[in-house]
């Protein structure tokens, strides 16, 4: 793999034949699995009766349900973005600005990452068990008729699922704000509230905007939660597109609805990217010398924030324990006797889904990691032609809503020159070309961060190209590549919005099985599936970390920060 190591300062090198070959392969893959499906989708949307027309879009907009779904999608996304950013900020503030015992901080971070490793229905199922018909909390507080389904349930479930995204974005930026700035403001006579209002909050504003847009996009394109929680009274675009295809067998109509979803999603993405660029200018001070500890929020504010954060943390833990306990009861809400029959069900009836999912996820992780490392290192090299285009097209499937990508794959690979419907290939390809994005970005960023003088030092100490690559470059990027691999595995295991269009009798997925259980009201079985899935994800995550240690023993040092 001469594809890595960048020689930043050297003259514009001639293009290595090896690199050229890799580029050709890469572009071929992108053409087939990114550009071609998208082109087929657009063709389906903008063609009627064999000629270009806007008739499909017009037809879709004539339907009152679709118009309502568009409005609902936007309203829901706005609501989730507000509430998720709010909770994300509270958690981020607690972790970065309130002096807490280290263990408690780690605990908070641990609770926050739970939704990342859970199947997408986890909070929906747990909320249903708690607050749905005959739910635990409803009976506890003797609330007779409370309708969870529709907007409120979807909103709460999505907030719980997505606020960790806001937490990550905001804690990163709050950590980057030098506490010295806050101390300076305080020493100029600002009260704690004033310092927060005039220094901390404005400096974290780009992070807030970023978090808001990320959450807006996540909610807008979310499929799993509304499918379970929204019900008939609250249609949104993702579920409408799905129902159009699976219920009405109208592929073209579904594609057109997904296209309606695409426009706001792209807009939000572009806005978010421009914010991120602005944020990197703000990123605060080249740190010189030691940084002081944060000042804290003051007693009353601290207690208020911590109470809120603790309350939500407890609620999340409560929901996860419902899932866990629910997987061991006979019939939830009716017979709470303990049993292992749900797990027996999972490992007999559900065994095929488990096997298929793990197989697909492993294949996608291996292939996707190689692809991500290659793409990342190629687009970090200055002499590679069209490297901007390469970066953009590689990320395209990731930027597009899952519903759009799934429908595009159905259209592209159901008919035409390349028929892949019902195969494992199509599921793996979807995961690889959609979820390698994180690995591409982290690899590229890691390569850019390696000071060229490190590689030069290695050469001047007498090491050749290969030694330099394996002893210096690789250990320094390995953690980034491994992070990409972990992400790939987790999302390949938990994805549904795109994959649901591609499952078949031959290849089934855990998430789809969970969905089937939920629609058949087999909540205990759904809970058992969820627990198993979470366990697999945890184990695999650990295995990848272990592998990283084995392959590059020194890489633990690479993770150290000065």
């Amino acid at each position, binding site marked *: 793999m001469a594809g890595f190591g960048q020689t930043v*300062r050297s003259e514009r090198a001639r293009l290595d034949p090896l690199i050229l070959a890799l580029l050709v392969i890469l572009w071929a893959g992108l053409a087939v699995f990114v550009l071609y499906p998208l082109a087929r989708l657009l063709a389906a949307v903008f063609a009627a009766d064999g000629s270009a027309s806007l008739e499909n879009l017009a037809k879709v907009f004539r339907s009152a349900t679709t118009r309502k779904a568009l409005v609902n999608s936007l309203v829901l996304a706005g609501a989730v973005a507000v509430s998720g950013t709010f909770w994300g900020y509270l958690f981020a503030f607690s972790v970065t600005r309130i002096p807490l015992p280290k263990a408690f901080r780690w605990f908070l971070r641990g609770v926050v990452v739970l939704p990342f490793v859970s199947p997408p229905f986890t909070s929906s199922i747990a909320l249903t068990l708690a607050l749905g018909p005959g739910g635990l909390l409803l009976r506890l507080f003797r609330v007779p008729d409370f309708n969870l389904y529709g907007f409120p349930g979807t909103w709460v479930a999505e907030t719980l699922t997505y606020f960790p995204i806001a937490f990550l974005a905001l804690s990163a930026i709050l950590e980057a704000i030098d506490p010295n700035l806050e101390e300076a403001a305080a020493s100029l006579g600002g009260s704690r509230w004033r310092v927060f209002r005039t220094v901390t909050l404005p400096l974290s504003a780009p992070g807030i905007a970023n978090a808001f847009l990320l959450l807006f996009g996540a909610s807008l394109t979310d499929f799993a939660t509304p499918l379970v929680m929204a019900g008939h009274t609250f249609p949104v675009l993702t579920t409408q597109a799905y129902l159009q295809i699976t219920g009405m067998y109208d592929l073209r109509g579904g594609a057109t609805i997904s296209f309606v979803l695409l426009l706001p999603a792209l807009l939000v993405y572009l806005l978010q990217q421009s914010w991120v660029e602005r944020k990197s200018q703000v990123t605060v001070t080249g740190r010189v010398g030691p940084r002081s500890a944060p000042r804290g929020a003051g007693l009353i504010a601290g207690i208020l924030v911590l109470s809120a954060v603790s309350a939500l943390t407890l609620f999340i833990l409560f929901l996860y324990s419902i899932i866990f306990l629910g997987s061991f009861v006979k019939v939830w809400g009716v017979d709470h006797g303990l049993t292992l029959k749900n797990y027996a069900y999972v490992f007999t009836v559900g065994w095929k889904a488990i096997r298929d999912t793990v197989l697909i996820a492993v294949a996608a992780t291996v292939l996707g990691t190689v692809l991500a490392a290659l793409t990342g290192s190629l687009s970090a090299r200055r002499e590679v032609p069209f490297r901007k285009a390469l970066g953009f097209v590689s990320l395209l499937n990731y930027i597009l809503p899952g519903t759009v990508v799934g429908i595009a794959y159905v259209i592209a690979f159901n008919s035409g020159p390349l028929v892949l419907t019902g195969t494992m290939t199509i599921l793996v390809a979807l995961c690889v070309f959609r979820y390698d994005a994180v690995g591409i970005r982290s690899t590229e960023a890691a390569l850019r961060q390696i000071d060229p003088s*490190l590689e030069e030092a290695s050469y001047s100490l*007498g*090491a*050749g190209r290969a030694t330099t690559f394996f*002893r210096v470059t690789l250990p320094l990027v390995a953690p980034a590549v491994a992070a990409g691999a972990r992400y790939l595995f987790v999302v390949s295991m938990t994805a549904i919005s795109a994959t649901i269009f591609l499952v078949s009798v031959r290849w089934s997925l855990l998430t789809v099985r969970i969905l089937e259980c939920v629609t058949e009201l087999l909540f205990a079985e759904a809970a058992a599936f969820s627990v198993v899935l979470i366990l697999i994800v945890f184990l695999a995550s650990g295995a990848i970390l272990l592998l990283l240690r084995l392959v590059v023993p020194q890489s633990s040092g690479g993770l150290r*920060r000065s």
Partner: protein
Amino acid sequence: MSLGISLHQLSKRFARGKEAVSAVDGISLDVEAKEMVAFLGPSGSGKTTILRIIAGFERPTEGRVLIGGQDVTDLEANARGIGFIFQNYALFPHMTVFDNVAYGLRAKRVPAGEIPRKVAEILEMVGLKGVEKRFPNQLSGGEQQRVALARVFVLDPRVLLMDEPLANLDASLRTRMLAEIRRLQRHLGTTCIYVTHDQKEALTLADRVAVLNRGRLEQVGTPLELYEAPQNLFVADFIGQANLLRGVVKAVSADSAEISVCGRSLRVRRGRIETLKSGDAAGIAVRPSAVSLGAAREAFLQGRVESRIFAGDRMEYEIEVEEGVLVRAYGALPGRGFVFSEGDPVGIHFDPGETMAFPL
């Protein structure tokens, strides 16, 4: 074994947009074996680029590099046997001190049994015993610097190149490390090029100093030669401090020139007298130590004290002799001689033996 370095007509141009920026411009220089030469020049004068060309990280646009008489211009960096100390040290962050120092030995395939002994020896020599297992980010700046030195010296390099190695250290540590580097270089007899923009470092450390300006070599010589006999105004100004004044040449004789400065006539014997022509503009350089102060009336130039600073062992004055023209001078401390106050009128004399003139 230590070898000399020869640079022949070295040039380097970088493409910046469409135009070419000349970073190094026709440099020729010989560094003797075991010699320590400092490259001194302001930032952007091309010091780093020359060093990187010698090390093999950069190819020259024109010119050749010879090490021990062998042309190495087309040799890869890892085949040159050159030690390079980076300004930021470039220690491998993912390796312990031991692994950092052993890196070059392993690359050279030194038998594994010998490595621990060699590493221990060199760490002892740079005063770093007992930190083998630490990672670079667990070391202080001075310790990191020592690891960088050990990592290079353990290979017994034929040539050592150092790019502003002390720039990231604080003042007292810098003085200590300077002495240390000098001791190690003498002890091991390594040929060394030391790049710095700090004239004090260059003058105290080097056998010879090469003064660079905008990619060109202005002058090479021992520190004393540069100080005593600068060849142009840039060197006169850059080495030691100097007051620079504009004048016009009125007459030139075999060993002196008469130059009019601030409306007065001044006889100058040093500098590049032989290149001056009557009627030309000339630059006058007078070191503050060659400026004496006295009563205003019978002096060569009259001025007013613009500012006065206590500089530890002396007073430093800035004296305005004409609108916008300031002359720096030193004076006695209070209690040991006369002390002027700000605003005082003052008379100025230039020591004729210490005044230098150059063509402009």
